[in-house]
């Protein structure tokens, strides 16, 4: 596709369940980012991949959160034992090189933990 694609667009899950959020970046983009946005706030950095490896995972809030990008393209954000506080819009972005230039965002996945 032409842009960053995120699936699902909406996810409702019960507290304590496991969820996976998928991101398809723009073809050829080596850098991939995950952000989380709560209501009334700006996107909050979670993790940044350069190719297959996590270059910076300092934003992951705790060990319930994990992300992979095994082939340097599609990425999956995994959240274990979800809590109501995990409810937010999860945004994925990609950029050609990852040198701080503009990143292109997907439409986000709205996660609701009930």
């Amino acid at each position: 596709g032409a842009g960053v694609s995120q699936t699902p667009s909406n996810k409702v899950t019960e507290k304590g369940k496991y969820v996976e959020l998928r991101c398809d970046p723009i073809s050829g983009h080596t850098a991939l980012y995950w952000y989380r946005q709560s209501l009334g706030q700006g996107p909050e950095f979670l993790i940044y991949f350069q190719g297959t490896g996590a270059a910076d995972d300092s934003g992951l809030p705790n060990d319930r959160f994990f992300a992979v990008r095994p082939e340097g393209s599609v990425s999956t954000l995994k959240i274990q034992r979800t809590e109501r506080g995990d409810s937010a819009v999860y945004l994925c972005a990609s950029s050609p090189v990852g040198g701080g230039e503009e990143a292109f965002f997907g439409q986000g996945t709205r996660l609701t933990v009930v």
Partner: protein
Amino acid sequence: DQQVKQNSPSLSVQEGRISILNCDYTNSMFDYFLWYKKYPAEGPTFLISISSIKDKNEDGRFTVFLNKSAKHLSLHIVPSQPGDSAVYFCAASASGGKLIFGQGTELSVKP
């Protein structure tokens, strides 16, 4: 610790007038600044950027000004149009990698 701050949650301007959105930062290591625009239910869209070696960058109706000594940047939109109504986010990065975003300013341009 909020490294990028947008202190005005909202701004309302008349169509045709200038919109000025402000952003302050605290980290002197930031070397690249960006503005993103966001409509409801969509991801942020890149608007304009500026490197720390410049003090101004212009693209059509949009101009970003950077004052490094004050650690302040602003986005000017002139003339403002109703289609500019959206939430605007300021973001910054240090030597590449992650972007740190402000809280956003909701701009409303009234016809």
